[in-house]
């Protein structure tokens, strides 16, 4: 189920993304980063054209559809993970290395190298494949995916403290940062709420401290259901806050919260509610028939 949710989210994002226009940008402004530097410029010259990017998008979509529905899961999850990894590297070569999509990239790799197509997939339906026994086969990948997302949040807190020190909690830190991201017209959104923040600068150190504390405590959500009930809703509020106050949004991080949902339990609860409603409907029908018989 996690495979279907994560892959369908990535598929949705890719379907909405215009690859052809990306292929119209000049290659000379590109700055391949990290592993992307291993590929020769000749390769980018061929790929970064409207035609090349259209073919790339088609292959990525086919892979993601296969991975979402769980068809040839072992192959499609691997190709989807690799192609999405490459795409994210490509767009980062034009800008900076933000980490929004990265946990989802890592989650795709976990899904690609674990038996993620054994249950909710076309493969299991077509081949009547038997699920593997043993908790670790399915439990460990979920633990790993949760840990990767938790690491993304947790690691950003000590880095802030290492780089900026206690100065990170200064009253002007958050308002300045938020205004910096609200001045241009180059961000995805152009909200101006940041300009309100200086009025509340006295409260800002507490807001920043709460966020850093939340980041540090995020790993608790891996194991504790109670912690999840606090940490995940805080995360939603945090990301909406960064969107409206800083014009910075991390939708992939939010989508990755799917790894914290107990999907089999959710499905069985939905089924139980449906059964209950069906039962109520049948009882109602039986009462109507009795009433008709009595009137007759």
């Amino acid at each position: 189920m996690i495979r279907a949710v994560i892959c369908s989210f990535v598929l949705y994002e890719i379907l909405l993304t215009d690859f052809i226009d990306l292929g119209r940008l000049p290659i000379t402004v590109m700055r391949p980063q990290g592993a992307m530097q291993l590929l020769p410029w000749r390769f980018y010259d061929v790929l970064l054209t409207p035609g090349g990017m259209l073919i790339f998008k088609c292959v990525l979509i086919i892979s993601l559809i296969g991975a979402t529905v769980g068809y040839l899961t072992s192959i499609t999850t691997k190709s989807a993970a690799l192609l999405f990894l490459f795409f994210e590297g490509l767009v980062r070569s034009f800008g900076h290395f933000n980490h929004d999509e990265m946990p989802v990239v890592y989650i795709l790799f976990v899904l690609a190298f674990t038996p993620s197509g054994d249950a909710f997939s076309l493969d299991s339906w077509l081949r009547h494949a038997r699920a593997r026994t043993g908790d670790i086969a399915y439990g460990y990948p979920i633990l790993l995916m949760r840990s990767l997302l938790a690491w993304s949040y947790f690691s950003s807190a000590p880095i802030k403290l290492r780089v900026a020190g206690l100065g990170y909690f200064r009253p002007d830190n958050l308002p300045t940062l938020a205004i910096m991201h609200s001045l241009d017209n180059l961000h995805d959104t152009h909200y101006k709420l940041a300009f309100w923040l200086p009025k509340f600068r006295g409260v800002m150190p507490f807001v920043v401290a709460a966020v850093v504390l939340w980041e540090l405590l995020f790993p608790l959500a891996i194991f504790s259901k109670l912690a999840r009930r606090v940490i995940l809703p805080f995360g939603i509020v945090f990301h909406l806050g960064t969107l409206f106050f800083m014009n910075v949004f991390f939708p992939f991080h939010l989508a990755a919260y799917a790894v914290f949902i107990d999907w089999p339990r959710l499905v069985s609860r939905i089924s139980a509610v449906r059964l209950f409603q069906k039962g109520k409907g049948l009882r109602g029908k039986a009462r109507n028939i009795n009433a008709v018989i009595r009137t007759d």
Partner: protein
Amino acid sequence: MTERAQALNATRERYLLTRYAALTVALFVPLLLAFALVRNFYPFAASTVMMAGGDLQAGRTYYVMRGETSTGESIDLSPIELTNALSGRAWSLVGGTVTNKSFRLSSPHPANVVLLEAAGGIEKLPPASRLPDLLRSWGTIYNLRLSPSSPQRLQAVILDCYRWDSGRYSDYQHLVQSWRAEL
């Protein structure tokens, strides 16, 4: 379950455990290294976003892009509406292009190498050397969405560079420089 089936299951579990251990090491060791060095190395992120915080006194340079239509009207031009693949990073593309970052790679694009040699090195290269190409490509993308006779078609794309360095929460728009690319 027969003894043979049990043995087969045990072998499968061992194989899975080895695979999971390898996957964990392959993902977490580079992530820990990136964290320890506070350095991003794609695809391993060090979560460096917003790590430095904002300094009111330090000031900030920012850019506003606009277009000039064939009727001479100035319109707001948002790069994210032209290339939505650059979601969350169009601002750093513009900043990087103005500061000639693509020329500072260990192995720049061959066309950039030619330009570098002609200029006599990175220090002698004028700032924003590739900015006209970028602005022109965005202008072309915009015009491709309009009919050839549309008065909304662009004849130029302009990038204004502003500075906020007042050290106060006011005077945000101090114009520093403009670049204009004719289409």
